[in-house]
């Protein structure tokens, strides 16, 4: 899996080739050649194998747009996460040290997630979180690669942002976050099947962003949904069960059509009966749509926009929930450091 040596290659200006783990294939990457030239991929989804990429490189085609990684930010993030790993590797971890780390993590992270000069792009977030938390074995990787390329992209975005936000919500356990990342990568398993007609597909895509329309589905479609869940999700659960420690997370694989308003499928949850991570899952699954594209411009979207984009969050007072959760860490900071840490925009 990607590790710090990958980042060192960036710094040293060596030519980087794909390390063979495809989760990054759908996304824009860049290589720095030794002579200082940058070689950039055209857009996501066009290349799905290493050989394709190498062929493209040899052709040296012009690019439509560019995207770059914020190496310093990523490296800084990796170092902080390594520190996190050190703290919790000591048996169950020193809670005081973990608390301090959480405060510093939030303090470091927040400016880069809000709009502004210091904000980072989605690519940076995906890269950082993937480097640290993406941990697929061979079987799982094979399973993931069978997903349509659009789904791979969307799920990778979901997994990256979901895991990132989970750290803000206080789910600071490396194994847990790794498991969570993995589960989110396999979201929307029923859509790996190809039996859907085009109209059904488009309807289902719409369902993602506006859940609750499931009730308007024909009985035939509903039957198909039933069947697909039964056919696809259990297999994925069985595959993931072997490597996942927190098996309770597997329930999220059934939540593709859930919403926070009570009109979702199949459980019809409302936010009143859900934990923070439950809410985050549903929210994040709606935030990134099926045709999500990792913007080739340096998109400076931040958490704030993520929250504002979701009416559900606002309606259900989730912004105040987030405030309570994050400020719990800050109240500790007051005790520890006698100072007040401000989150921009919170």
């Amino acid at each position, binding site marked *: 899996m990607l590790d710090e040596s990958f980042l060192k290659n960036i710094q040293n200006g060596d030519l980087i080739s794909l390390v063979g783990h495809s989760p990054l294939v759908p996304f824009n990457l860049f290589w720095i050649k030794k002579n200082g030239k940058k070689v950039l991929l055209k857009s996501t989804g066009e290349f799905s194998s290493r050989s394709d990429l190498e062929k493209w490189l040899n052709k040296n085609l012009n690019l439509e747009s560019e995207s770059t990684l914020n190496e310093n930010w990523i490296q800084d993030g990796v170092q902080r996460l390594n520190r996190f790993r050190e703290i919790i590797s000591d048996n169950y971890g020193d809670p005081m040290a973990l608390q301090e780390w959480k405060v510093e993590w939030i303090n470091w992270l927040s400016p880069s997630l809000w709009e502004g000069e210091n904000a980072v792009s989605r690519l940076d977030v995906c890269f950082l979180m993937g480097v640290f938390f993406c941990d697929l074995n061979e079987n799982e990787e094979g399973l993931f690669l069978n997903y349509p390329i659009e789904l791979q992209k969307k799920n990778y975005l979901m997994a990256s942002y979901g895991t990132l936000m989970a750290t803000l919500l206080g789910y600071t356990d490396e194994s847990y976050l790794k498991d969570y990342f993995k589960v989110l990568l396999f979201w929307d398993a029923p859509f790996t099947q190809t039996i859907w007609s085009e109209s059904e597909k488009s309807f289902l895509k719409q369902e993602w962003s506006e859940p609750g329309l499931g009730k308007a589905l024909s009985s035939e479609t509903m039957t198909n949904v039933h069947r697909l869940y039964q056919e696809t999700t259990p297999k994925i659960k069985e595959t993931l069960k072997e490597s996942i420690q927190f098996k309770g997370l597997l329930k999220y694989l059934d939540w593709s059509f859930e919403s926070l308003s009570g009109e979702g499928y199949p459980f019809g949850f409302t936010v009143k*009966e859900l934990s923070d991570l439950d809410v985050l899952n549903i929210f994040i699954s709606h935030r990134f749509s099926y045709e999500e594209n990792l913007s080739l411009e340096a998109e400076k979207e931040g958490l704030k926009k993520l929250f504002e984009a979701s009416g559900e969050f606002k309606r259900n007072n989730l912004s105040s929930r987030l405030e309570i959760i994050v400020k719990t860490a800050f109240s500790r900071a007051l005790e520890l450091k006698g100072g007040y840490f401000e989150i921009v925009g919170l």
Partner: protein
Amino acid sequence: MSDAKKILWKGRVPDELRVVLSDSDVILTQNEAEQNQCAFRYGIGGASNINMGPINWSSIKSGPSIFFHQEILGWEIPQLIFKRVLAGEGALGPEESYKGVLLKAGSFKILNPGSLGYYSDLLARFPGNLRVNPVNIRSFAISLFSFLDYCSQADLINYPVEVDYGISQNCFFIQIHCDSNELHLENILDAAGEQDPNNPVKSLVKEASSKVDLMEVYGLKSSSKLVFTGCWIGNPNYMRSQSFPSLVVYQLDSYKSAKERKGRIPDIQSVNNHSVDEFQRVKLAESLPKKYKKQKEVTIEMVVNPVLVKRVVEFVRKYRPDTNFEEFELSDLRALYPRFPDQNAISRINESEEDEILTILRDANVDLDEQVEHVKEQIPAEDYLSRIVSSLEEMSFDDAIVAAELDDEGSTNEVVPGSEEEDGAKAQKFSGEREDLTEENQKVSGQRQDLTEETQLIPGEKEDLTEELQKVAGEREDLTEESQLISGKNDEDKTKKIIKGSKEEQKESLRVIKGEKDQVDNKSWEVKRSQTVERIKEKAEELRLKGLTNKEIDENIKLIVSEELGLSQGKSESFIKTLSDDVSDDIVNEGIHVINENIKQRFRLEKVENQLGLREKQVAKMKQLIEGLKRELSQSKSRLDEFEKSSSALSNPESENFNQELINNEVAAAQEIRASLADIEPPASHASPQTEDERQLPDPSLDLVNEEGEEQPESKQENFKAKNIELEREISKLKNEKTKLESENQNLLRKFKEGQEEVLEAKSEDGDADALKKMNEALESQVESLKNRLTFMYENSKNNKDIAISANEVQKVIEDKERLFKEKMEVQEELERSKAEVRKRDRIIKQKELELVQKADLLKNKPIGDDQDLVKSLEKEKTALVLKLKEQAGELKAETLKTKSFEQKVKFLNAQLQKFQNTPKARGAAKSAVTDPKMAAKLKQAEVMNKKFKEAGEKLQKELGEKKTELHKTKLENKSMELKIKDLEKKLLNLAKKKAA
């Protein structure tokens, strides 16, 4: 949330409850007929689930239950909780549930059980000024966290456990929730018992409920959550001593109702493949059943011996025919082991077999016969036969009795040893009988139906068969009585006497009395046994040749046994079955034992291999670390070498960067400054002599502090390592510079010493000046007398108008002189003071430099990881020194100004002196003094003194000038130091920029 909309309340409704329910949809009814429509009921006897009394956990069976003190309803958080329970209003998030009353809230997630104490302390601290006992909070939290951890080990709940907490004006609450996996009400109740030192789980929930003012326990079915809420009243008006803890339990399925629900699973759940097929009542215990332990605890799965399992199952079922095996536990099973007839077999039973036995006992549909038969058929016939024979050969009489079910433990009759007194009554022991032995029942062992037959089993000796044997097992007196049994041969022609009872009727029942366990029994049995064995052996070859199955072999042996031992068909079948089971058990066990041992060995091997693997990983990791450190060390060394080369190149005339002029200027300036600032005390007077290293001090300005004075990042990663390497580089560079400066310093010291001598001379002159002072005083007195004389002379010679000098004028002159002298002395003192100050500051600077050298030494020797604090302290030192230098520069400036002012004063005074000396009066005074020889002498003396004063003054002035130059030199040195500091700062900035880039 709760669906309750109607509450049946018989009796007076407390006002507090009315208030709580006032703005909700809940209907309070008194109509008992609506009982079934009401989830909550009060005042209707056994059907009530609302109690206004203390918590009684044992009365909670199923469905919701409330125990409360009405005073609890007077506070805001409990009011909202009751509203949630009774009216279904509220949410999981407390900011939603307690909207409007929540003042402050917090939340955290627990992802493992490693820091429960920390979290409970966190909660205990939160209420602040509210009067809530932190001990209770801590106990509540620890109890519940521990309970949930046990549940997670049993896979009843999943981590994370999410904790929300907050305060309102009068209350503090904690809400704990987590995902639940088929946790039932009984699991909660299992932990609501009395304290048990052997089972700490048993009382955890009860303990928690006793530490709060109100506890709420409920489940959310849709999202599969389990929620606990604890609430404390922190207002002093709440009279806790007159109240009791309240409890609300609702929306938790009991095991039974969940089982009933099994057949009515909604579609949603089936679509999502919830495993609803298996509902298991999971019991929580300190020593969890193996299957509920986490996968981390590796358990060995042993091979099961089905024959033994079957034997034990049959035994248990027979021994405990009326037991409900659903509740049958391992402890119950093990309690029966001492009663199992084959103690050898039971001693080798393993845990897998015990599990299997329990499973089969609980499920009556499972039949092992087929399996056992199959296993038996796997045994080679030859082995089987030979083992049957050898087993029979070893079988004792008692075992035979048991095997033939002639000694039924289920019987109410006791086996009477056959002694006379014991046989007094008609009741005798009859093996295998259930009938009442008070009657004259004579039964042949195991053969009721054979009472009319002639042949019976009689233990006896073979040789006795030729005689008429009358033996009664265990009862000598019976020999004279009717009932005797004679062991007989198979051959009916031989002496086989049927001795019936008193009537000697062949058709009467015979009585076999198992008498004393004496030689008679055993001998008889041995004879018969050996006969049977012989026959079987004879038959064995035939059976083997026929290629019969083991079952068929059993049938054949059964016939032989039946004939030889005189057993009925049923009993002989039982006998053979027991024998066969025993033999099969042994054979199977021998095979399994090897396998199980292999399994154990393999398990041990795997364990050791895992440990080895871990060790290897650790070693590899350590090796990597060491290699990493080595690499870094070599890198830092190479960089040091590079730096040294470059620094030596700087001073090498042939180098490109060589700047001779700069070096010369710096050296010259350093020389002057050193000379002027050299301490009176030689450098050797410092606290400790300078070592070679100490002399090579790095400049404190090398400390890595950026412009804003921010601290370095706390990471111990490469940033810090690189900086450390840079620091060392700078240190070594300045080391070289320092060496040069020190050598120059020594030269300057030499010069200084020479100058010092001059100063000492000046001091000695100062000493002379003191003497001169004294002389001056003496002269003053003389001048006084002279003055008087002059006055007298003036008075007396009024005609000497030319002289016209008044004594006052002379006095004035003298006074002026004195004043000037005093002022000069003052100036001198001031100069000395300023000198001392400068020397003091210089000493401090040198001290700091020494400390820096020491620290630099430590830096060299310390491992990389420990340098963080050192760098910080060095940085701080540097800033402090820089500030001090600035201060000193300022002070020097002030001193310089002072010196200048003194200079001017001295000039002024000298000018005045000069002026005075040039005035006619003074000249006149000088002239007039000539006329009187004595006066003249005195005046001359005064002049000489004056001259001396003048010379002294000039000398002082000279010294002043020298001091001025010293000051000037000090200033120059300071400037050069400042320049150096600036250079180093620039270099640091460049380094930082490079790094950032």
